[in-house]
Structure formats: C-alpha cells, structure tokens
C-alpha cells in the first residue's frame, strides 16, 4: 500500500509539474498585463508541434527546440501588436474574449498545418524510469519540474533585481504614474506576450515526451493550468507552481484511490471550492491591483 501511495505521489508530481508550467505562463502574462491569455494553451501546442516538425527535418534536437521557442515568441509578439494593442483601452473582459478568438484561430491554423495526427518526441534523457522506494518515476518529470523552477527563479530575479523588472512592477501598480516617469506600458505588454509565447513553447516541448502532441492539446491543458493558477491566486507566480503540483497530486490520488472517473471532475470541483472559500487563492494576496 505504501508503494502505491508513493507511486501515486510521483505520478501526481509529473502531472502537476505540467500544470505548473502552464499556470506559470498564464500568471506571468496576467500579472504584467492584467490579461488572462486564453490562447496560452495554443502557444504550448504550437511550440511542441513546431519543435517536433523541425526535429523531424533532421536538425539537432536542441537547435530545433530553440528555433521553435523563438518562432512562437515572435508569434506571441505579433499577436499582441495585432490583436491586443489596438484594443488596449477596452475592458478586461473584451481583451479576454479577444484572446479566446486568438485561441480558436490558432487551433484552426494548427489543424491546417499538422492535421489531426498525434506526434511525440523522444524523452530528453536516455535510460528507463527511476525506481525509488518501490515506486517508479519518469525522468522527464525532472526536466519539466526543472523548467518550472528555473522559470520561477528567473522571474523572481527579473522582477526583484533588475531595472526593467521594477518598471514592469511599477506599470502593474499604476499605469498612469508609470507613464509619467517614462515607463511605456505598451512595450511591457508586448514583451509579456513575447515571453509567454516563449515560455508556452518551452513548456510544450518539455511535456511532449509525456503527453504527446496534437493540434487540440492546448485546450485541456489551458483549463488545468487555469485551475492551478486560480488555486495559487492568479497573481502569484509561486502560487501558480504550488497550485499546479497540488492539482496534479490530488488528481492522481483521486484516480488511484477513489475512482478514475473522478479525475477530470476534480479540477472543476477544486476550482469552485477555491473560488467560494478563498477567492484570492491559497497564496494570493488581498487587495492586489491589476492594470
């Protein structure tokens, strides 16, 4: 039995690290621009599919990854300039609906390019799974978790230690005042989308060996990522990672110990409970401002 519990924990952490990455990308954009980017899941799917296609042309794996990340980052930037920027004075809800439109268009585009086939990438590290205390751990989980930790550290360092990071924070707190001291919130919004494109693509590439990739993989991932982000408070990058891991572990335990039918419903139940009991998330701060 203890074997089983440990195994479920490991599986939960693998799943959770995937949700964490998506949640991290969602929260970063939200924190900087106040926009909940519903096309985030499509960034993930297109990043993974691009990397797989590039890798299939014979270029080295690492180069394929970097190229895919750069391409999706450029796409993120272009989309921001074309769709978000012209509507920057619209309400938050309008902007969310714009990202929803982007999400549907991107999914359609991916369907045209890649069709409905499922693709997969080989695992990054050779060798089989690790066996710890009678339970099995997929080494790809370390890569995924590692990416989440590195992204988290880089974000903290950027926001806390650099001049540009402080400018971002200033723009988040008060857009008008930031403008008065010479910070351009429009530029920040642009770079936030470039960044979330790159992060989404990286997440897609790292999870592809575990989840495999299809043109419509982004939708379910975005939902799980969104629940993870809400658990974490939607405005808290550390909370997003914790929320993701928590969701993964809970899903794994509920599927393994209670009923496998409960798994996907659980995310929605947690979402409802958190929104009713702690609307600011488990780590969310009260009274945070958004632009």
């Amino acid at each position, binding site marked *: 039995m203890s074997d089983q519990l440990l195994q479920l924990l490991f*599986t939960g952490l693998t*799943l959770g690290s995937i949700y964490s990455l998506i949640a991290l990308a969602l929260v970063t954009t939200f924190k900087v621009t106040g926009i909940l980017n519903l096309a985030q899941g499509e960034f993930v799917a297109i990043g993974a599919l691009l990397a797989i296609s590039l890798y299939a042309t014979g270029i080295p794996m690492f180069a394929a990854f970097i190229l895919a990340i750069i391409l999706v980052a450029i796409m993120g930037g272009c989309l921001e300039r*074309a769709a978000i920027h012209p509507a920057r004075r619209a309400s938050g809800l309008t902007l969310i609906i714009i990202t929803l439109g982007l999400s549907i268009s991107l999914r359609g585009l991916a369907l045209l390019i890649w069709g409905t086939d499922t693709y997969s990438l080989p695992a990054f590290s050779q060798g089989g799974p690790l066996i710890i205390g009678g339970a099995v751990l997929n080494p790809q989980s370390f890569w995924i978790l590692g990416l989440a930790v590195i992204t988290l550290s880089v974000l903290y360092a950027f926001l806390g230690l650099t001049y540009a990071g402080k400018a971002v924070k200033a723009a988040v707190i008060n857009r008008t005042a930031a403008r008065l001291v010479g910070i351009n919130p429009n530029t920040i919004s642009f770079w936030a989308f470039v960044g979330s494109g790159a992060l989404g693509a990286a997440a897609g590439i790292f999870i592809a060996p575990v989840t*495999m990739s299809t043109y*419509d993989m982004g939708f379910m991932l975005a939902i799980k990522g969104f629940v993870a982000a809400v658990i974490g408070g939607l405005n808290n990058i550390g909370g997003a990672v914790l929320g993701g891991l928590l969701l993964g572990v809970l899903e794994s335990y509920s599927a393994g110990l209670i009923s496998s039918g409960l798994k996907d419903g659980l995310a929605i139940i947690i979402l409802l409970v958190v929104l009713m009991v702690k609307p600011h998330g488990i780590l969310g701060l009260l009274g945070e401002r958004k632009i």
Partner: protein
Amino acid sequence: MNKSIRKISLALLLILVLTAVVLMSGCASEKQDSTGSRDQGKEPYKIGAVLETSGNSSSLGVPERDTLLMLVENLNQNGGIDGHPVELTILDNKSDETEAVMAVKKLIDMEVLAVLGCASSGPSMAMINTVQNEKVPMVSMAAASSIVEPVNERQWVFKTAQSDIVTVKNIIAYLQGQGLTKVAFLYMNNAYGDGGKVAFTAAAKESGIEVVTEEKFEASDNDMTPQLTKVKASGAQAAIVWAIPPSASIITKNFRDLGLSIPLIHSHGVGNQKFIELAQGTADGVILPIGKLAVVSQIPDSDPQKEVLESYIADYQAKYNTPPNSFGGYASDAFNLVVNAIEKAGPDRIAIRDELEKNTSGFIGVSGVFNISPQDHNGLDVDSMVLVQIEGDQWKLID
C-alpha cells in the same frame, strides 16, 4: 519602425483570421469530397459517409476516408453501378456525437441511398435513432456490439467491424490456453471502452475467469499510472486494455515504466501502426486479436480472404504509398457491401436494406467472411480475427 511592425502584424492577423474563417466554413461542409462525374448519361447514385476525419478518433477516420475516396474513384472509372456513377459525400463529425447526428441529417436531406459511418462507436450510436426514423440503411465501421443489437430495434443498421464479442472470444481463448484465471480490465471511458467492458465481463463470467480489478481512463488522459498501480496491487495474472491510440499507447508506456511483467493484452482498437509508433518501442510483447489484413503475408494461401486482402493492399499502397490498416478495411467492406446491394436491388432504400440483410452470405471482405442474417447484422465470426504479438514493432502471428 513601430508602424511597420504593426502593419506586418495586422497582415499576419488578417491571414490568421481568414484561414480560421475558411476552416470554420469548411468544417460545416467539410470534405464535400463529392466525387462522380455527370457527363455520363445516367443519373448518379448518391451514397453518404460520416467519418471522424478530425478530433480524437481521427486515426480511425482518416484511413477510412482515404479508402472510400480510392474505392469510389476506381468504381466510377470502371463504369459505376450499371453505368450509374456513384456520388459519394463524406462529412466530418469531428469525433463528436452531436456533429455526427447533424451530418447524417444533412446527408439524408441530400437523399443519399445509404449512409456509411461512423468509424467509432459513440458517434455511430448517436446516428442510429435518425436512420431508424428516416428508414435509411446505415453501415457502421465501429466495434461496439450494441450498434447492431438488439436487432429488432436496429433494422436499418449494419456494421463491418468485428463486434466486441468476436475480439473477446479470441482473448478468452488465449487466456484459457495459457491457464490465466485472474485478470485486470482497463478501458477507455467512452462507448468503445464500455462496449468492451460489458462484453468481456459477461464472457469472463461464463468461462470462469475472474476480473480482479476494473479501471477506466479518459481519452485525453496523459498518464494512467494511478490506474496501473491498482492493477499491480491486485495480483492480476494478465491485463486487458480496451482503448485506441493515443491513450492506448500511453498506457502501454506507463505499463512498461512500472515494470509490470504480466501479459498485456489489447483490443483490436490498436490495430494500426500509429499505436506502435506512439508507444515508442514499448509496444513489443503486446498481444492482441486483429483482422487478417495486418498479417496477410503470414496467413496461409488457403485462407479464403487472402486474395481480397492482397488486392486491397496493392490498390491502397499504389494510391497512397503507405500500407492500409484494419480501419480502412472496415470502410472497404462497408462500401463494397452497399455497392453490391445497390447493384442487385436498385436505387431503393428499402430494397437495399432487405438485400443487405437477406442476401449477404459468404461475402468475402477485408475484415472477414460476412454472413449477415436477420439475427446478426454484423455477420462476422471468431475466425475473422487472428491473435498476434508485437515483435520488433511488427505484428507477428501467434500459432
């Protein structure tokens, strides 16, 4: 600088939106792959098909679409049915039940003589009501027995894929041969998985095989380790999985990762190369019942299906440059059954249905020898399948 970026971006967005619009409008009428030429004197016969050419079950629907397009082209080149060209309309149901019903209604409005579809069980089940009410013959290519049973509520519905029970009988025979009596059963949470579960649990009970644990998973799940840990703890002597790729491949990967050493038996839902490819080398050792198409070179020349199989493979290979899979085979049988019936009975829905039900015996198809009767609208028997084991990413016949 900023302005030019904006201009480029706007142009890009415009392209994106346009492609999306084209795609959306395309989906509604997608794959109006109507083929058939009107320059021949005689009026064309219309046949409709509803297939999963996109979505979760597209690995089934796409080879079926390709097969149908190939067959209708060949047929029309050879003069169609008694000089009448066949006009085939294929609609995409996006692997969705509601879309399937909408598509079949559209086809019926177009006055098709018969409907082929769908590739998977859920959408096929969803269409039954409509074709029963409108009295249109339908030939499904999906597995679940409940598509054609009970027959008195399914007078208009036939199917070409082996029913779950055929697969189940093959698996049970294997288990009994190996002396395995305690098994774990894992299935996809959809009509295909449920059908397999119902058929297997009933048959297992009769043959004294105990199902020690029963687990399900979603078609979109990324990791089935939690379900498999239960299998590990249950003391099962073999695991039977009822799923289609990609989830069938993922569960196979998880199964190997967990180091489970009991035999892993899959259903015929994994009868395509995609399953092996996505399992990335972990599919070796998997045992499954499969139609003879996959192992045609290994079956004896005396097999009645050998010739039909070889000619289908040659045609498909010549057109698409890739070997066909069993799903394409189901489509080929469905098409040929319907064409055969129209040929004999003429362009009349009632006559076509009667012809299919009463006069289809000893019909040699790709999926088996069909003996359709008023009691059995599938008409395939246990010998339409063989047991194979995957070795070095190849199907290998088990004697």
